[in-house]
């Protein structure tokens, strides 16, 4: 390296900083400063929009501007007073839990069979599923989906929304879950089979418990996806009392008149917490497994 520069007023002279390697050249110092400037800038960029979400719900006089709040919980009264707010969160729960149950059950059955049994045309099927899940997106298919649900009389039906969302999420769910089942040694089932367990017993005693972490992952993944989904309920649900939080949120801030910031900020906070909690849960319990399609 270049000559050692003693100039920087760092603690390296004292030799008491074991972490930093010997001494830094001016270039390295500039690099360090540049690095931390970059980090500070990035942190500000990502944090800035979100700070509003943390401070405003507790601000005595909620505004669009970011400010140090005069702490209060009064804003939550607006939330409770609104006739749709809490109901929409219930709707969000109904939609995400309903979809998750359907997706987990169907994906588990399909993924297990596809992983363990060579059904004719299996590879083609998997390829087709993978292709489908990436090309037939909610936006590209909103016209036919809307028309189909319209013709079926399923507009303004929560069941209809659950079915459409399940159909959209299933291919990726099957794919992720099949990958998971593939990693489970077949000797578990073989061993149970040698001991005389029937197919049904093997599934109940061995397979379901062993793939439970995979099922939980898919469940959480589905809930997070549906929880945040705006487009499908937006085009399929008409009545305000059936709409999930994603849609109601937009109604709140696009309604005429000046938006009720007390309501919007508290509602946003309440609506955000579950995803964050679920993310932390998955992260802690299973580690953040990197799936190509975790967010679609």
């Amino acid at each position: 390296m270049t000559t050692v520069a003693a100039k920087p007023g760092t603690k390296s002279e004292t030799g008491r900083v074991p972490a930093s390697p010997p001494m830094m050249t001016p270039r390295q110092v500039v690099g360090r400063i540049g690095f931390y400037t970059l980090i500070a800038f990035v942190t500000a960029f990502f944090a800035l929009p979100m700070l509003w979400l943390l401070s405003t719900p507790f601000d005595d006089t909620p505004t669009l501007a970011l400010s140090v709040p005069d702490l209060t919980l009064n804003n939550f009264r607006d939330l409770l007073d609104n006739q749709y707010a809490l109901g929409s969160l219930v709707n969000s729960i109904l939609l995400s839990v309903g979809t998750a149950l359907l997706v987990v059950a169907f994906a588990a059955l399909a993924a297990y069979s596809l992983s363990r049994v060579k059904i004719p045309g299996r590879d083609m099927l998997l390829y087709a599923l993978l292709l489908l899940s990436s090309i037939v997106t909610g936006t590209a298919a909103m016209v036919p989906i809307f028309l189909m649900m319209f013709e079926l009389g399923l507009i303004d039906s929560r069941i209809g929304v659950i079915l459409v969302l399940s159909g959209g999420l299933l291919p990726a769910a099957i794919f992720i879950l099949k990958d998971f089942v593939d990693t489970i040694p077949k000797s578990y089932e073989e061993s149970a089979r040698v001991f005389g367990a029937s197919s049904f017993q093997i599934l109940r005693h061995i397979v379901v418990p062993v793939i439970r972490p995979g099922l939980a992952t898919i469940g959480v993944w589905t809930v997070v996806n549906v929880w945040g989904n705006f487009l499908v309920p937006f085009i399929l649900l008409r009545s305000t009392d059936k709409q999930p939080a994603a849609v109601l949120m937009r109604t709140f801030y696009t309604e005429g008149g000046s938006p009720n910031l007390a309501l919007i900020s508290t509602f946003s906070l309440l609506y955000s917490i579950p995803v964050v909690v679920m993310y932390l849960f998955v992260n802690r319990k299973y580690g953040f497994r990197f799936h190509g399609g975790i967010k679609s």
Partner: protein
Amino acid sequence: MAQTTSPATEAGAGCPDGPGGPDGPGGVDGPGGVDGADNAARSTARDPADSGETDVVGLGKWRASAFVAPALVLVAIFLVFPALWTLYIGITNYRLTGIAARVPEFVGFDNYVRAVGDANFLNSLYLTLIFVLFSAVIGQNGLGFALAWRLQDVRGWVRRLVESLVLLAWILPSSIVAFLWIALLDRDSGTLNALLGTPGLAWLIEYPMVSIIIFNIWRGTAFSMLLYSAALASVPPSQLETATLVGASRWQTLRDVIFPHVRGHVLTNTLLISLWTFNDFTPFLITAGGPDGRTETLPVYIYNTAITGGQMGYGAAVSLIMLLINLVIAIFYLRLLRERR
């Protein structure tokens, strides 16, 4: 408990009486009368080779197919059918209201001809390309890689803080982040104007496209960052150490050691985020395509013409164009995945 038998299913795979077949109560289980000759015949039957090696639970093809069926039915009705139906709707004058709603007429390729000549559609296509190019291909890709690369040997709270913030922007519901940005960019009391000292600047009206591009970089960088972190972690440390030993600079290491390893990931990542950004509906939540169609990307354009405007036939034609673009990207992506395996 349910006395289902594995060999019965195996042996029965030849008989075509459907998925319900092997569930019969107990009967097949005790092959009491089966004599040696029958056994020999069974054991020489053609079936075992297929089911023996992988079908460890002894589901048999019929039951396995029955297990796959519910998922496939749902996917067929709510994903495959709509995609195919788009072909039909696109060549009709399907509308939500009026006479054409009752009896849609066949109009051939009129919708496609109209689209190609429609300035609004072409403008929307152009805006979408700009949006994908700047926010995904350049923005998310670049920032994601930079973060992954610069953070890889940072430990402790700095890294955790940055990663958490980037991830949070990604996992929050879209209607919330949309409003957070509306608040940030607000003309009168937005935080950005306060910080930059530009009071009264209406970002979403003066610079709508730039705004949603920056927004989308903020929103989606997490995926690229995670993917590149994983890719960088897979570079063998021995190679990095070799580079250090021969005295390579940071840039030389990046160019000669790291980049060859992550090149495949760059391509994969670019295709995926392009696909998602191309289909992203979130800009609608911020600008609804406005002002004056200046942020009307294809998804928003489809919504505005078909769902709001009721022109289903025309909307379907534009949707098909979108589906085809998606198909091209997806095929590239899958081919890439296959090559790497």
